[in-house]
């Protein structure tokens, strides 16, 4: 996993609620056996017509917006557990998703992919969406060590919560496998003392 520290970028607004992982990456693209390349099919059915031509009204096709932060409506990433959704966002160049609520499995998958799920309040989300739509060049700074999303033009810094352990992992590019494999003696001891096993 790549290290995540500070991000100076702009945002891409997608103000829809309950965006499910079937929209982020439709099931028919899950046939690959590697992690790479899912970005081309990110939001495929919203982004392209059946004949493969881009839909001009979808934000990822708009020349107005670019950046490494996707700013999306409440309850982002609900539905299927497919980690491919996080891989697709990452592969398409996103490094953080801002929303006022994330589905649990997506949140975990994003953290394991090196994609920051950055939760703000409903009011902050509304302000950010409106701000980006008004000014697509609006600079955003994601400071993970300080746990803030800053909008320098507004002199504003929105704080966000992140699990202390997960924060360390992201900053250093560590993942849970290293940690868990090192727990082997404790795990084996646990297996020995289990009263029941069938």
């Amino acid at each position, binding site marked *: 996993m790549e290290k995540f520290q500070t991000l100076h970028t702009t945002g891409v607004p997608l103000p829809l*609620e309950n965006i499910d992982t079937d929209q982020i990456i439709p*099931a028919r693209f899950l046939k690959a056996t590697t992690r790479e390349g899912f970005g081309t099919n990110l939001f495929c059915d919203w982004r392209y017509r059946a004949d493969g031509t881009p839909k001009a009204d979808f934000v990822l096709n708009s020349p107005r917006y670019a950046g490494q932060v996707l700013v999306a409506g409440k309850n982002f990433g609900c539905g299927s557990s497919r980690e491919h959704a*996080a891989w697709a966002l990452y592969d398409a160049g996103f490094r953080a998703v801002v929303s006022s609520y994330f*589905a649990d499995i997506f949140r975990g998958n994003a953290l*394991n992919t090196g994609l920051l799920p950055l939760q703000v309040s409903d009011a902050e989300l509304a302000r950010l969406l409106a701000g980006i739509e008004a000014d697509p060049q609006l600079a955003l700074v994601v400071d993970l060590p300080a746990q803030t999303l800053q909008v320098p033009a507004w002199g504003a810094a929105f704080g966000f919560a992140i699990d202390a352990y997960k924060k360390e992992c992201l900053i250093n590019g560590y993942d849970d496998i290293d940690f*868990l494999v090192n727990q082997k003696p*404790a795990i084996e001891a*646990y297996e020995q003392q289990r009263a029941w096993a069938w």
Partner: protein
Amino acid sequence: MATTLFDKIWDAHVVRSIASGQEVVYIDRHLIHEVTSPQAFDEIAARGLPLFRPGQMLATADHNVPTLHQDQPIREPLSRSQVDKLTENCQKYGVELYGLGHQRQGIVHVIGPELGLTLPGTTIVCGDSHTSTHGAFGAVAFGIGTSQVAQVMASQCLLLNRPQRMRISVEGELQRGVTAKDLILYVIAQLGTGGATGHFVEYAGSAVRALSMEGRMTVCNMSIEMGARGGLIAPDATTLAYVAGRPFAPKGADWEKAVAYWQTLYSDADAAFETEYTFDAQQITPMITYGTNPGMGIPLTGHVPSEVPEGEAESFDKSLKYMGFERGESLLGKQIDYVFIGSCTNSRIEDLRTVAAYVQGKQKAGHVEAIIVPGSKQVEQQAIAEGIDKIFAAAGFELREPGCSACLAMNEDKIPAGAYCVATSNRNFEGRQGPGSRTLLASPLVAAITAVQGRIVDITKYLN
């Protein structure tokens, strides 16, 4: 101290806690399938790690498989390569695989319970969000991402934050024609798709107790559709009767010992839940969804809402536009093109029996294509043994071979763009059953009656 059912099981699986609050949780059973495992095997291989406890894993091929001619090689090259990769990985690492053609093959959440692998008091994970199904047995079962699949492969553990607890009680008796599927669609419509995020849900109350194991699995299956990490139901006599004698269930003295333990698995009388809801079973009627998330459900005889909370209008109208419905309208009389009976929510023998009992001696409407995809090879065999296959054939329903099929349309079983499908599956997301497909979620009974009538009707007027 008074403890919830969930915490009793979780506590029994904590290997250790770490300073930041997470716990290393031991996983008893790890189920895998072809779609979310290849990258995890690669991860393990890239780090030169062995599988820690391959004996606690079980693999099946379900998501991608065709439901016709399973005795022949898979034609679609990408699906075939994914299934081949699973076979290759299972051979290389010594994981038991019930692949295509195997007598025990089927949807991962159907075969676990059917084989007695799903047991009360266990922790079960799978790289699939509907792992919550197994909670019906009083197990802590939940879906995980592929990175976590690799973690369990490497250590048989996960590093987790303990979720919050929610209890949903449904009291009273369900009315005629109202099934477990209606119960859970009703609950999700009340709570919304994010209503249980961060929680593990225990289902309780007399209406839940009265459900068969199949019904309980349907309920727990859809926990994820309201955002819950999982759902579970305390084991009782119904559970024990279902588990006893299954291939992987404990036997003899082990069985006695297991039962003694399982009988301690319930929420203590004054155990605390962060959130509690109680619903009246009498209020629940046959349900259907009209929108593009499972929370958008209404009684069959109800109306699409005309008012929505401020700020949600854009998503709501986008959804209605996709479905071709209007605010405030009734769905009664709408013509349906497809009926899909299958998926890990409703593809067990009880579901097939319900459909057969209704359609016996009737005919599906001429314009409807009705397919039934059993959840497993064993369900299929049982249906044949009971003569249910003949009832389906006579009524014009096509009984296919087992797999996930049109639930997520990774194989050839797709609903065409713009067509309406009443489905017994669990997700009505845009394009879930194929690009442009329009899904209406309902119970097997509603699906059967819809297939016969060819349009949405008030099923209470058509019950046998």
